[in-house]
């Protein structure tokens, strides 16, 4: 059963990536193009200021069209397959172990939690950034910090889940859940305070462009997780009905 669920999770993730790619192509790509335009115009200005030789033509390794099409889909499909597979494994472990929830409801609950834990909470500390934001020298520390943030969010959720289980022995379910949610918020808050602050947005980078890009990024990832939750729920229901 775990094998079937794993493959189906990866399949749901790839299908979700296809939908997310369409959304990203429509709402995010125009913002990325604008950011690249900003980047190029500033590179030219910087060159002009230094009275250097004419700006060297940057060799395009991968054309913008490929980046926006096949490249975007490949990246999202790899991501979708990866998180879809992990999602299926967590579903396989949790189903029936955490209350008697139906498979579709449980898949939706897990997908909403994943969206909150992996996209929204880490994004509050380290928001998604378009091209032209971020210095090349700091990519190592920024990547490390971002992964730390995601890890912190997931670890805090696991601790909160344990707190909830412990509280359930002596308290009502609703109180245990609220106290666990409060512990999660507190743990994440402390972690976000301790992690290094990163602000590398150029001074004259358009605020509206930054906002639109972030909204587009969140929208694409929302579609990704919503599709995983809905499609995997249907597939898991089918799998469970067949074995029953």
């Amino acid at each position, binding site marked *: 059963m775990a094998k079937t669920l794993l493959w189906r999770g*990866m399949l749901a993730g790839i299908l979700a990536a296809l939908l997310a790619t369409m959304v990203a192509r429509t709402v995010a790509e125009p913002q990325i193009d604008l950011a690249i335009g900003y980047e190029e115009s500033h590179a030219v200005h910087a060159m002009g200021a230094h009275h250097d030789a004419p700006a060297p033509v940057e060799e395009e*390794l991968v054309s913008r069209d490929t980046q926006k099409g096949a490249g*975007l889909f490949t990246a999202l499909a790899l991501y979708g397959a990866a998180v879809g*597979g992990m999602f299926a*494994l967590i579903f396989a472990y949790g189903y*029936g172990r955490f209350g008697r929830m*139906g498979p579709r409801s449980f898949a939706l609950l897990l997908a909403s939690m994943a969206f909150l834990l992996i996209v929204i909470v880490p994004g509050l500390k380290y928001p998604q*950034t378009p091209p032209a934001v971020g210095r090349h020298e700091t990519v190592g520390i920024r990547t490390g910090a971002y992964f730390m943030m995601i890890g912190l969010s997931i670890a805090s959720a696991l601790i909160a889940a344990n707190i909830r289980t412990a509280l359930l022995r002596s308290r009502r379910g609703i109180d245990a859940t609220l106290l666990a949610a409060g512990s999660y918020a507190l743990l994440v808050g402390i972690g976000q305070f301790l992690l290094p602050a990163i602000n590398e947005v150029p001074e004259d980078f358009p605020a509206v462009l930054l906002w639109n890009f972030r909204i587009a*990024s969140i929208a694409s*990832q929302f579609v990704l997780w919503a599709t995983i939750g809905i499609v995997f729920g249907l597939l898991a229901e089918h799998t469970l009905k067949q074995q029953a």
Partner: protein
Amino acid sequence: MASTTALFDDSFIPVRGGTGIPVADIAPWAVFGTLIAMIFLYFVSTEQGAYALFDGMYVHEYVHDGRHLLGFPCH
């Protein structure tokens, strides 16, 4: 429970022979699935960015837009 049922008419389907899927059934697939996921995620998020297994920038440029979109630091 009535309102819950109205919203989610999705009842629990018991797993054959127990409450949940046995851990022994999940474990080998969890190892395999996690490994695959880590490799995929590495190429989307980190390769030729913060760390590089291969020379050049081809992977970076190819997944460029997706990397930005998913919030991974790109350059």
